[in-house]
Every structure is written in C-alpha cells, then in structure tokens.
C-alpha cells in the first residue's frame, strides 16, 4: 500500500462501510468529486500500465483461497476481487473498493498456500478496515481544496500507515488461522523479502522488513500452543508450485524484456523443474542465451530452439528465432524454411512485415 494509493482511493468514503471506521460526516462534495476522479484515474492507469495475468486454473485457485478467508469476515462490504498483474516486482495493492492486485513477482516469491493466505488476509484487512479512507480523513485538514498532492513528508501519515500495517498483520493472522491456514509460514516469506531487499541495497526497506518480522514473531508468540501449526500441518507444497508455475514464465519474459537475464534464467529453470518438457520454457532458455552479450553459447541456444520445436512444432517463436539466427549468419538457405513456417503459423506476428522482408532477401 503506497501513500498515493491511500489518498487516491479515498473516493469510496460514502456508501462503503462507514461504520467500519466510525465516520461522522462526509467530506465536502467538491473534495469527494476530486478524490473519485483521482481514484478512478489511479486504477485505470494501474490497469493500463500493467498487463493482467489470466490463467484459469490459477485464477480459480486464488479465488478459492480468497473465498476461504472471506467466509470468516463479518462485513457489509462486497468480497474483494483478486487480480494478478504481470510485474516481476513483489507487490500487493488493495483499493478501497476491494480491488486487490498481486503481482506475478509476489506469487513467485511466495512458496506455499499458507504464505499466500497470509498475504491475502493482510490485504483483506486493509480493505475491511478501509485504511485508505481513514488515512484520507485524518489527513483532510492538511489538504487544500484544490491541492491533492501526496503528503509524503507528513510524520503523522507515516505513523498512520505503520499502525495500519500492524493491524493488517495482526488481524490478518487471526483471519488466516480461522480459515485453517498456518500463518507461521509467513515468517519464511518475510525472511525472503529481507534477503531480496538486502541484495538490492535497499537499507531503509530492509530495516522496515526486519521490524515487521520482529512484530510478526511477537504476534505468533502470543498464540496458544495448539495454533502453532508448523509441526502439525501436513501440506502439499507442490500443489501451490504447480498451480502458480505459469507465472514463472511470465516473470521470465518480463525479465528478458528489461534485460535481467539472470533472473529470467532462474525463473525458467524453476519452471523446468516442475514442467521438464515444456516447449515455451526451452525457447526462453535459448532466447536468454542469445541475449547474453556476445552470445557466448550459440550452439547451445540453437539446441534449445530446436528442442522447443521438437516438443511443439507449432511454436512460431522458435521458428522465428532459428530463422533470424541463420539469416544473420548469412545462411539464407537454412533461414528460408523457418521464415516460411513462421509466416504460415503466425501471420499476425508483430514482426511479420520484417520477416517477409528478410525472406525476400533469402529468395534472391
């Protein structure tokens, strides 16, 4: 939850669970209209800047976990809507209207369904408690009528956010337990986030995460012994890994796009452990090698592309990769059949006009 999101989603002040935060009166209409437009703009921009990840099996799985948690919530609010966005950065964002967005990066860091449940439960509490609305109202006195700039330097706002995070951890933990999940496993997730932040040199974030982990350990220590489920629970970690495997390829593609080839390779390698005969994964392995400066392993990258075609002769991207590879080396006779196959398989490919030009050169 970031501060801009907090301010921007204050538009749901009226009509949504005003009793949850004990509101006595609505803000002036003009301010409300501005917040409504700003929040709509925020979500629209967020959805337009981020590609939604649609996998039927994964969406069903996420909904099942979400429903299992929501069954234990007493609220007039409609159930939250869980969306997955393609973004390698681990993040979760919840809007005051119940729009809940988890990134593929977050799902890639989460290791089991218990950790997923804790993340969702945390976000659900932000929604149930309408933290964004509360933040807006408590800050309203410092906002001029026509100025909606984020109050980034306000110490009070920082404290409010920290309190909201603590409440989300505390009540999210309770919600997670009521739904039958093991929130103690979230400690491993927090440890993982700390390692990620440390590796990126994010000192301030590392400190925040360490404080959060300490607070979470304190909450766990206060639980009765019988709710310590680490030893008692028999879970099927492979189920979560298999269901969420497709996001690894989505993260890998995004990482290739941004040039983070090491991360892309790590994601594809994890995916191949779960799906060892997947053509798309072999294609991506070849693409990663191909993108390395100087392409130190051309023979190996060709082998990956050829393996991808062997597994799926209809994989147009592998045909394109091999056609381009041979074309650039001047092996026009070898490139030609790959380009012709690509044109047949994928006439709508984004680079098809380029490929037709290359093919004309091959045919001369």
């Amino acid at each position, binding site marked *: 939850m970031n501060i801009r999101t907090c301010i921007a989603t204050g538009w749901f002040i009226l009509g949504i669970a005003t009793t949850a935060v004990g509101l006595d009166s609505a803000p002036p209409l003009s301010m409300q209209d501005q917040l409504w437009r700003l929040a709509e703009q925020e979500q629209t*921009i967020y959805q*337009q*800047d981020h590609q939604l990840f649609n996998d039927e099996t994964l969406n069903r799985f996420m909904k099942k976990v979400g429903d299992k948690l929501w069954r234990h919530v007493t609220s007039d609010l409609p159930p939250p809507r869980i969306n997955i966005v393609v973004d390698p950065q681990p993040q979760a964002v919840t809007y005051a209207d119940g729009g809940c967005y988890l990134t593929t990066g977050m799902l890639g860091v989460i290791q089991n369904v218990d950790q997923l449940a804790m993340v969702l439960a945390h976000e659900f509490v932000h929604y149930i408690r309408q933290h964004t609305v509360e933040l807006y109202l408590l800050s309203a006195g410092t906002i001029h009528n026509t100025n909606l700039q984020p109050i980034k330097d306000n110490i009070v706002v920082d404290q409010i956010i920290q309190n909201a995070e603590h409440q989300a951890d505390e009540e999210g933990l309770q919600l997670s337990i009521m739904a039958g999940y093991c929130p103690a496993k979230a400690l491993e997730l927090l440890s993982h986030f700390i390692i990620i932040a440390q590796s990126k040199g994010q000192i301030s974030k590392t400190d925040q995460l360490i404080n959060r982990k300490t607070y979470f350990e304190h909450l766990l220590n206060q639980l009765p012994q019988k709710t310590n489920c680490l030893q008692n629970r028999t879970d099927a970690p492979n189920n979560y890994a298999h269901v969420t495997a497709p996001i690894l390829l989505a993260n890998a593609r995004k990482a290739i*796009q*941004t*040039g*983070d080839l090491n991360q892309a390779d790590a994601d594809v390698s994890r995916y191949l452990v779960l799906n060892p005969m997947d053509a798309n994964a072999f294609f991506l392995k070849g693409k990663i090698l191909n*993108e390395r*400066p100087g392409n130190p392993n051309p023979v190996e990258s060709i082998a990956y592309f050829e393996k991808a075609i062997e597994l799926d002769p209809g994989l147009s991207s592998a045909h394109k990769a091999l056609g*381009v590879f041979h*074309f*650039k080396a001047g092996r026009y006779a070898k490139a030609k059949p790959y380009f012709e196959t690509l044109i047949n398989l994928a006439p709508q490919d*984004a*680079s098809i*006009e*380029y*490929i037709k*030009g*290359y093919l004309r050169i091959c045919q001369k």
Partner: protein
Amino acid sequence: MFFLTACATPWQTVPDRLQSGHWSVRPPGGWMHMTTQDSEMFSKDGPYLEYIYVQEKPLNQGFRFTPKKMKADMLPHEAAQLIIDNMRSDPRIHQFNLLSNEPAIVSNQTGFRLAYTYLDPNGVMIQSVYYGVVLPQFFFNLRYTATQRHYFHQEMPAFKEFFSSLHISS
C-alpha cells in the same frame, strides 16, 4: 523533453541545411534548433508542444531503462524491440500504446518505424513517430514527438518534409 543535457548550445534559428556528424537535413523554416554532443533538437512552438529529435548514438552507449545495447548485427525488428522495451520500462511513461511497428527506409538504409502514444508525467497525451537504423558504428534515430491534441497533426507535414530531406552518409 527527456533529453536536455547540460552540454547544449542555446536555441538558434535553423539554417537552410544542417549538417551534423554523418547526416544532414533541411529543417522546416521558422523553427529553432539546439545542438548537444550527439544530437540535434528542433522545435517551432517549444519542445513541450512539439519537437524533432535526431541522434547519432554510438553503439557502445547504453539506454536509460534497459541494460541492453544496440549491436552492429542487429536486424531492424530487434532494434525496434529494444527501443520498445526501453520505453515500456521508463517509469515516466504511462499508458504506452504501440500503434505500429514496421520496416522503413531511412535515407536508403533499412531500418524501422514506430508510432506510439503515451501519457507523460503531467497527464498529457503525447504522440510520437520514431525512425531508427543500425549502422556499423552507431545507431541513428529520429523522432517527431508532440502533444496529441492539435500539435502532432499540425506539424506532421513539416516533419514529413524534414524526413524526406534526410541524408545519412555511409
């Protein structure tokens, strides 16, 4: 607007023909231009409203939002994809919408042409046409960028003439 550097000359009236590095062009009359180390910027109403930007970028020079670099053996569609990836990773660009991505001849060289729109940090919709060609020593690129409302279409004829007058020496 993202390209102004500390090493720029002041804005000057355009000459009849401008030569810079390995290229030359006939700028639109009445426009102004500013010279930097590896680029020229041209504008009529101010660069926030519209500008033409021409750059001769050394191949070993990176891009701001991607660790990838242009390579001499890159095909036009690969070079185009690198530019697209760089723009998609730019946190200042919102609602990036690629309108077209196609091969193009840039002064008798085989390159690419991109057309796209995006929302800038001030919430203004910007429209742009970007030409690029990978040459043995450098990546030549030329773009026309303007606010989508009014200015982009108003000055498009001037840009077309500008582009048709472009000459890149081998």
